[in-house]
């Protein structure tokens, strides 16, 4: 669906980010929270961008959030690029998948799942079950 992805070689993000990838391989979205200042940042860094502490703790995200903005890329196979604001307060770039691309709205609730891109597991989002998935 996204042309050119297969040929991508991603840069090495370093050993300090490895816990993130371990969670991702298990289908879990881990967020970096600084043990020094208590804040969550995104994208993951080797040290906290707010206070430069390197004591980063990985905590599992609820995987829930809302669409902050999005665009349908009108390529041969259209895809949706989006920013999703997680319930934990950070906003991350992602795709909205398995959705009706013509009816998406800012503010819609979404939930995470993982797919393989450029040989790594990455979080993408689907429209959350409006009927109450937790029942």
């Amino acid at each position: 669906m996204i042309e050119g992805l297969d040929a991508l070689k991603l840069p090495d993000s370093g050993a300090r980010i490895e816990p993130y990838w371990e969670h991702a391989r298990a289908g879990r979205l881990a967020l970096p929270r600084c043990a020094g200042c208590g804040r969550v940042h995104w994208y993951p860094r080797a040290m906290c961008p707010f206070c430069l502490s390197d004591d980063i703790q990985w905590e599992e995200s609820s995987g829930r959030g809302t669409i902050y903005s999005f665009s349908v890329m009108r390529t041969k196979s259209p895809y949706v690029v989006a920013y999703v604001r997680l319930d934990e307060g950070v906003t991350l770039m992602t795709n909205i998948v398995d959705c009706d691309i013509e009816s998406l709205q800012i503010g819609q609730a979404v939930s995470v799942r993982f797919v393989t891109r450029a040989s790594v597991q990455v979080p993408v989002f689907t429209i959350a079950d409006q009927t109450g998935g937790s029942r």
Partner: protein
Amino acid sequence: MSIKGQAAIVGAYEHPTRKAPDKSLAELHADVAKGALQDAGLTKQDIDGYFCAGDAPGLGPLSMVEYLDLNVRHIDTTETGGSSYLSHVAHAAQAIALGKCNVALVTLAGRPRSEGMATGTALRVHGVSPPEAPFEIVYGPTVVNQYAMCARRHMYEFGTTSEQLAWIKVAASHHAQHNPNAMLRNVVTVEDVVGSPMVADPLHRLDCCVISDGGGAVIVARPEIARGLKRPVVTLLGAGESPRGQNAGQVDLTTSAAARSGAAAFAEAGVKPSDIKYASIYDSFTITVLIQLEDLGFCERGQGGRFVADGNLISGVGRLPFNTDGGGLCNNHPANRGGMTKIIEAVRQLRGEAAPAVQVKNCDLALVQGMGGSIAQRHGSATLVLERTT
């Protein structure tokens, strides 16, 4: 210390080509350097400072200084994408004020059109090992879909419409009809813009700038040197620069670093937005213009759509004539970097050398706004305030 009044733009040249398959990149840089020298009435031997950015060939200043056999004592390669050249002008003024050089040459050139580059729609990895890549590039971000997200969010928060954005292109096209070198010279309507194919919702093809080869150069000199030349003196009154990213996860797509660079430039110049007679505004997309106009204080936040509508940016019609050469939206966007051509058209306006149909009357104070990278990701803004002083 301020750079107010410390330097003047004495030479400006825009390459007339829009497609240059038979020219090398270094040749284009050399062409515009020669053109700017001729425009200034200076010789190569007068240049003692050289500025270039990431578009320069080879090892940048080392390659171009060698290619042109320049004898310089000061170089600067600040790289902030399309806004780099505004920073170069500001840094040249700083260097001149500190006695590091007297006459600085700034060049830009590129040939993405001849190279068949899909500038706005292809995946691009910038620089060496970008740390965000595993968290962004895997989702297919392109220049156009990133700015499209800015537009969508602006529409959501403020009720901005595609028709209002279209007015920015319409205004640019009204200007481009008078520029024989412009790539798109036909006047378009709001209906033409919103009826053009969707590239990345909500941005249409005509919301996007052109892809062109070409380049441009300016020469910045000490005021005493400027006064000895035959052209009107275009003096730098103020400058501001600001980079911004995603604030470590606190994304805001409806404002940009132009708020900071603009405030700094206005403060240094001692002028306010309502004093500006002409504005060159970076126009990679229609939404880019709208966000910067708000950030610079030409209108209130959220009011950009109303501000640009009904021809308010058309010279002779509206309150703020902008991009009277047709801008990136219609004229050219050499090397995918619009900062240099923004400076050049402001110089033309201040000299009274713009196309007669779009020349702003008594144009003695102009603003130049540049933006590099992507407002939706990491970007660099730079702002200049220029005044005609003779």
